[in-house]
């Protein structure tokens, strides 16, 4: 393994709003990871792990350093269709995982809005899904993982063995060690379909009240929030609550569990390849265009209805239009996701959404979810809600958007909120200190020193937030 200039690759975040070149290596086994560690030490460079590169921020960027691209470590090592226990390498994507287990009647217990993410990345950020209030984060379904530390030492962790590493490496942003295998419990399915209830929410209060009231009675719940309307209808949107079908409910379960039933169509109206769709979306991605799109979507969502939908179609909404993030144009996009206690969420978000509208910088996509706290060290979750807001970045709006997000940070912190390291790109070290607390940061740094005293593992995110 040698460091050559041919390895030098320009890498981006998912939103294409950050660029950082790194020496990219694609190890295929643990021994090669160890060789790359050695190479990094010899050349005085830092190392960051990267899975699918789907993070909205700099979690998988390491400008001028070494990028450990784990996409080639993508084997499903063991699968037991009787118990639903699967053992995977870290580069296995959720796509590969669900397609492997679904025909046997299982499903990953927690999935992100895209199936392109890798398990290693999912554990590093400790992702949540639309069922966070019920099933927690992905880490809560990990039975065991193995990891290699920068010292070269291999560790195996469960919720009882090496417990402190278990609860810190999951959520640890890849800064304590590199996952080499992950064992997880899948969730039973009795049908390839889910029952989905769709209903409108007329304003923010109704929106949050609906989610709060109905979350306990549903497996999944998610809200779409029209971010382009203010006043009395601020926070209007649509709620989707869904449930897996119970045993015996689907007479054609064998048929609906087939993969062919799940795959998302790759053409629009059976004609146009969806991979081209983002070019046609681009002219609408501005304040006026998106106001029209949101209004049309809201009007369409006024019809209250219930329907059956495949698991893939319900969960992986972000994969409907491939490369949709490109529609934001050359400046790319960022996401600002805030997690707020259920008591303060409405007031805080009312202030934030109103401010964005007043300043002419409305978000173009708003998504709400219900959450519960968890035991992981760098957790983002709490007993409350999250609101994810997408913003288009342009040459002209950078400084005003930056200023507004600083004010958002202040509102969220004052309301007792938290942030998520897979999403927000502007969180400063000071903001992180305030929401995580001194004690958590000290504990993380202590573990960092224990696992990686030479600071071999560093990402741009780590330097931004903990550097």
């Amino acid at each position: 393994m040698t460091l050559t200039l041919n390895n030098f690759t320009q890498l981006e975040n998912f939103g294409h709003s950050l660029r950082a070149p790194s020496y990219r290596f694609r190890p295929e086994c643990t021994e090669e990871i160890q060789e790359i560690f050695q190479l990094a030490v010899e050349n005085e460079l830092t190392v960051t792990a990267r899975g699918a590169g789907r993070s909205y921020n700099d979690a998988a960027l390491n400008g001028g350093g070494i990028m450990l691209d784990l996409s080639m470590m993508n084997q499903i090592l063991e699968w037991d269709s009787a118990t639903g226990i699967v053992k995977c390498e870290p580069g296995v994507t959720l796509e590969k995982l669900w397609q492997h287990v679904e025909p046997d009647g299982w499903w990953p217990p927690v999935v992100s809005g895209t199936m392109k993410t890798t398990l290693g990345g999912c554990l590093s950020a400790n992702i949540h899904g639309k069922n966070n209030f019920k099933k927690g984060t992905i880490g809560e379904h990990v039975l065991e993982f193995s990891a290699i530390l920068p010292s070269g030492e291999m560790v195996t962790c469960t919720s009882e063995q090496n417990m402190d590493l278990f609860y810190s490496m999951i959520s640890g942003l890849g800064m304590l060690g590199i996952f080499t295998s992950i064992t997880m419990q899948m969730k039973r399915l009795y049908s390839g379909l889910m029952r989905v209830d769709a209903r409108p929410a007329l304003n923010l209060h109704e929106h949050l009240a609906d989610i709060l009231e109905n979350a306990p009675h549903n497996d999944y719940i998610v809200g779409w929030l029209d971010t382009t309307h203010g006043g009395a209808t601020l926070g209007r949107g649509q709620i989707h609550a869904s449930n897996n079908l119970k045993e015996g409910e689907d007479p054609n379960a064998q048929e609906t569990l087939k993969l062919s039933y799940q795959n998302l169509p790759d053409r629009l109206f059976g004609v146009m390849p969806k991979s081209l769709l983002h070019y046609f979306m681009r002219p609408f991605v501005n304040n006026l265009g998106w106001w029209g799109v949101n209004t049309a979507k809201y009007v369409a969502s006024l019809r209250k209805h219930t329907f059956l939908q495949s698991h893939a179609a319900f969960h992986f909404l972000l994969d409907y239009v491939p490369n949709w993030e490109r529609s934001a144009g050359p400046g790319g996009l960022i996401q600002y996701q805030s997690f707020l206690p259920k008591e303060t969420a409405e007031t805080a978000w009312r202030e934030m959404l109103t401010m964005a509208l007043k300043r002419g910088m409305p978000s173009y996509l708003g998504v709400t979810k219900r959450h519960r706290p968890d035991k992981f060290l760098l957790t983002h979750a709490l007993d409350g809600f999250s609101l994810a807001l997408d913003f288009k970045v342009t040459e002209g709006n950078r400084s005003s958007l930056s200023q507004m997000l600083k004010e958002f940070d202040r509102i969220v912190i004052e309301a007792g909120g938290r942030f998520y390291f897979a999403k927000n790109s502007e969180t400063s070290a000071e903001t992180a200190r305030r929401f995580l607390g001194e004690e958590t940061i000290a504990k993380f740094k202590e573990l960092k020193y224990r696992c990686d005293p030479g600071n071999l593992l560093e990402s741009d995110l780590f330097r931004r937030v903990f550097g």
Partner: protein
Amino acid sequence: MDMLKWIYPYLEDNVKDVSTADQTQGRFDPATPLNPRRRGLIIGASDGLGAALARRLAGEGYSLALIARRKDRLDTVCAGINRSAGQLRAFGYAHDVCDYTDIPVLLRRIVADLGGLDLVIFCAGVNYPPGGIDKYNLDNDRRMIEVNLLGAMAWLTPIAEMFQSAKAGQIVGISSVAGDRGRVGNPGYNTSKAGLATFLEALRNRLTRHGVNVLTVKPGFLKTEMLKAAQGSTPFAIVPEKAAEDIWKAMQKRKQVIYTPSLWRWIMLAIQHTPSFIFRKLSF
């Protein structure tokens, strides 16, 4: 080494002891989508055009790595830039471009310190005239080739490879109007700058297809220390800040070749087309 071996037990004994290497000199503010940082390297930045370019680019928000032989002057330039920006914008690295073998390691260090690399300006240059149109001095000529041409090739070759691989980047090379024609006054200098211009053209032809811009700058007379070496009159001399302004504008437009001040384009057009039977009788 013992400490390193304790931290990384897999290290071989032949690994150099990095703990004695130069320490990173602090860190630039993190780049975020809303506060992006362009990253530039200027080779030959302790005074003249290099220092003027450093000040100009720092003013445009660049994070800069500056290279020069003279550490004290470099420190002064860096300190001035960082003071007027109110934040860290420039690091200095003492290096002689003729130390060719040091370049790969230093380049790696700089790219890591900057967190990437978007722009490289090769500005290092020396001018040692032979002292008259009937004088010859191979030592001077060799030194000019070693700095002006081989120094540029030694730096820009690995940088070209990096940029080609990353499919992004911008290279600016400071050639000279002196490279447009071989003249009686300073054959060695003419050769070094003509060689550099040809090298830059070749890089441009290689790299444009990979999304990399290569800009050749041909200044006329600049009011710098080098001007003192010039013999005879120095018409249209400009301050380096004016040249830096022209270069910055050309960089933004991703131009290929510029003269600064632009008047030299027409002067050199005439000189380039002057027939040899006339040119060889001239004494400038």
